[in-house]
């Protein structure tokens, strides 16, 4: 009898050690995945984005050591390593054969710099979404799309996808200046001083918009005469409704708004 009890005790002890080992291994795997940018929390937004405090954002410009590895995960680029920085002016060719310089500082409002490619599958959602001017907190955000230079991207393909309202600059230098390893990647810039409010990527526009909104709020960015609550709540229900309708292609005067069922 004692031998049986003793054997069972040893067996339970061994199983306990095994379970603890498995749990520890699982935790290490989850931690490793998190470090790679994968968040297994089902409630977490589908993207990799981070906000910058204004003081950190304005602290310094990027160096080579700030640039992260050329890593993507399911088409979503990871934020560059190192601290967030001041955005650089964007200069390069335009899809129509011209050239442009876009200054991202010294002007009011937010500028969304979208690093996109014509060939990446994840980018397709953003090209499509940007046919409607992007908004944040109910306010239109200036959109500047950056692609690789004409040596790497077809200008005619870019022109075909480019929204009418958004400036497009084709520049490898802009990718390098901002440490962007892979598209899609986004940098939200406060035009007042050119500081980076947030940067990162997401799997789609809906997810990115939520991340941008959070980054703007975290950075304490508040538009003129607008409270943080307004920024987060899109000002008013009326504005939210108008925005949702506009995103669905329904504008004031649309027959569907007055049609009788």
């Amino acid at each position, binding site marked *: 009898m004692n031998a049986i009890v003793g054997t069972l005790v040893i067996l339970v002890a061994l199983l306990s050690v095994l379970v603890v080992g498995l749990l520890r291994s699982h935790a290490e795997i989850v931690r490793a995945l998190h470090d790679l940018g994968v968040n297994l929390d089902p409630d977490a937004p589908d993207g990799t984005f981070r906000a910058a405090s204004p003081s950190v954002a304005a602290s310094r410009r990027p160096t080579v050591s700030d640039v992260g590895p050329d890593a993507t995960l399911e088409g979503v680029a990871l934020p560059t390593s190192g601290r967030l920085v001041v955005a650089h*002016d964007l*200069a390069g*060719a*335009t899809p*129509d*054969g*011209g*050239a*442009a*310089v*876009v*200054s991202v*500082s*010294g*002007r009011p*409002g937010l*500028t969304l710099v979208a690093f996109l490619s014509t060939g990446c599958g994840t980018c397709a959602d953003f090209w499509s979404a940007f046919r409607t001017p992007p908004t944040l907190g109910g306010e239109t955000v*200036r959109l500047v799309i950056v692609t690789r230079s004409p040596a790497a991207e077809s200008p005619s393909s870019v022109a075909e996808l480019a*929204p*009418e*309202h*958004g*400036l497009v600059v084709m520049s490898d230098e802009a990718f390098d200046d901002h440490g962007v390893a892979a598209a899609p990647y986004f940098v939200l810039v406060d*035009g007042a001083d050119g500081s980076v409010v947030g940067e990162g990527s997401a799997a789609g526009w809906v997810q990115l918009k939520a991340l941008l909104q959070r980054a703007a709020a975290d950075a304490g960015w508040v538009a003129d005469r607008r409270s943080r609550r307004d920024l987060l709540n899109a000002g008013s229900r009326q504005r939210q409704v108008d925005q949702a309708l506009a995103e669905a292609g329904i504008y004031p005067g649309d027959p569907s708004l007055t049609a009788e069922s």
Partner: protein
Amino acid sequence: MTVLAAHGFALTVPRGWDARIRLPVAQSVAAPPSMRTEEVVPMGGTTNPILHATTMMLPAIVGDYGGGAVERLGPHDAFVAIVGFDVEAAKTALFARRGIPTLREANFRPATQQRVLAGASGTQSFFQAANRPYCLYVVVGRHALRRSVIPRCNELLRGLRFT
């Protein structure tokens, strides 16, 4: 500062300016839906090189002479357009002046705008450079404040070369 070069322009862009050089393609003027005509629609706009620069955010779509942009100028903003003309025009008296002019306060008048905007003013000059004719058209957002804006415009123009 960044150097922007295309279509015969080489512009050193001072910090705080947006600038774009383009060579427009011939486009038909969109007929209003109510027109319902089979007539040949006239062609609109120049097909010569255009340089636009502004101290504000340059919109994606801007008319040759700033339509779509000048309406958004703030009190301390300026819009500069350099519009190329057909090479043959360089032989005419209108383009006899050689080299890009320096802007002066006296050049600006509220009436010198393609479409008069309250409070704003503009100036227009014709010249030739590198044997090509150009028009310089500048609008400042607030006529009363032009003294503070014109030096910035002249700084921009000093950085322009014709190739």
